């Protein structure tokens, strides 16, 4: 989760309109999906670096990639077993591209701006608002979960080893308090929203607004060109020198 938690900073990437960054994440993900060639994926991946550096997110990003080591190992094992090693390498780069581009988005978009961009995409206010609300409460609920574990351990609860079923049963002392507390919390939040005029008029005003600036248009044009270029390459593979299509022999 750490990889997706917004950090307040004032870099050029943070200032960009959330929609531009969403576009970036989507276009990069599409590119990652349509290509399988290691080199092409690698270049796509490299081209994300300027954004990561400009957003001063390098450390966070390394952390999030490192956090996925286990997943990568699994990917290598399974892909090599059922397909090729080469395939597993491209799979890994693919996932790195998607994770990086989306964490770039979540790390630099204020959750409240996220709501505004959803609104500008004509998502109804209630849905957009609950989306930003869930972001707000992720850390709170994480702390509560930790407190529940602490409280149960203090009365002798042990995370048991054992079969899937007994492990699932063993989660009950944690899950039930978590559900109870979260429901209570949800009630309190709803109560407090009502008491703050939530939904009292259709003509809601907004203190903050998001604006597509020159730099957003510029980046949008670059991203779309990149996308078109990618599609062309996909359709006419001869467009690129053949070494781009090099594959590992295994």
């Amino acid at each position: 989760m750490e990889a997706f938690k917004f950090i307040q900073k004032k870099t050029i990437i943070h200032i960009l309109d959330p929609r531009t960054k969403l576009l970036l994440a989507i276009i990069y993900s599409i590119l990652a999906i349509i290509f399988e060639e290691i080199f092409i994926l690698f270049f796509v991946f490299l081209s994300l670096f300027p954004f990561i550096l400009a957003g001063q997110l390098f450390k966070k990003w390394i952390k999030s990639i490192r956090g996925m080591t286990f997943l990568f190992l699994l990917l290598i094992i399974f892909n090599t077993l059922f397909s090729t090693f080469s395939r597993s390498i491209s799979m890994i780069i693919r996932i790195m591209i998607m994770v990086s581009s989306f964490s770039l988005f979540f790390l630099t978009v204020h959750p409240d701006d996220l709501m505004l961009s959803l609104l500008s995409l004509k998502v109804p206010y209630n849905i957009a608002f609950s989306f930003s609300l869930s972001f707000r409460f992720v850390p709170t609920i994480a702390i509560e979960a930790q407190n529940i574990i602490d409280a149960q351990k203090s009365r002798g609860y042990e995370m048991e080893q054992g079969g899937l079923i007994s492990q699932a049963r063993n989660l009950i002392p944690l899950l039930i308090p978590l559900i109870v507390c979260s429901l209570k919390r949800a009630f309190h939040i709803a109560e407090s929203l009502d008491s703050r005029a939530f939904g009292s008029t259709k003509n809601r005003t907004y203190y903050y607004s998001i604006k597509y600036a020159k730099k957003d248009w510029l980046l949008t044009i670059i991203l779309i060109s990149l996308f078109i270029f990618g599609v062309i390459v996909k359709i006419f593979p001869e467009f690129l020198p053949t070494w781009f299509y090099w594959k590992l022999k295994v």
Partner: protein
Amino acid sequence: MEKKLEDLQILVNNLTYHYPDGTIALKGVNLNIYSGEIVGIMGKNGAGKSTLIKTFNGLLKPTTGVVYIENDEVNNVLMSKLTKKVGIVFQNPDLQLFANTVEDEIRFSLKNLNFTKIELENQISLTLEKFKLKKFQNRTPFTLSGGEKKRLAIASIMCRNPEIIVFDEPTIGQDAEGVKFIRNLIKEKHSEGKTIIIVTHDIEFAIDNIPRTILMADGLIIADGPTNKILSQDQILNIGYLISPQLIILSKFLIDLKIKVPEDVYIKENMVQFLGSYFKDKMGITEGGKP
């Protein structure tokens, strides 16, 4: 009370604790707690009180430094042994209640203590009796009132019969009845020779029930002494975000008036007695007469 080395029960030496996200919650804590003591831990939110007590039963492992519980260094002993010796009662009962019935809730706490079946049932019924929960035995914990839930949460720790009992903020939101229940429980456990540690903001509760207070600020212990001394020093109070209990303020006021007051008038009964004779004296009234 004379403190003897062999009675030393908790020893904390140069303890630091860093949370995984980098927060340094304890910065070098040194502390001795003796068997049978009642000790308060005070200090503003975020001072590190909860972090400190969580190292006592193994929930958190010291980053550096050592914590001894009796003869065991917490790093070298199984958590199950620590939680058996040190029982922590957390503030919010909702964090732990989950079972189908009140009885099962207690049973769960006794699960890993190697009781025989008969001992187990005995202990359950004894606990329910003692905490006046017998009549709810087969009810679900979720329909209990706030006060009853709190009693059940406390019972679910007390039934394990820990040597060291830690309360985190026991009096929050409690009315006089609830406070009295906790006061009596502490008295009772104290008379059984248990060691009791109470994390609290409640100065009036502390001055009445806790002889020794430790004040924490910013990951350190900044004062350790008799509660009435700690709660009467302005400088300490400022750092700890505390205020003086009413009767300490009053006794200081009397002293400023050059009135000779006994040292222990911070206790209500003593203040009543003192003011009683002072008033009689001033107004020259006779026993039972009104001014």
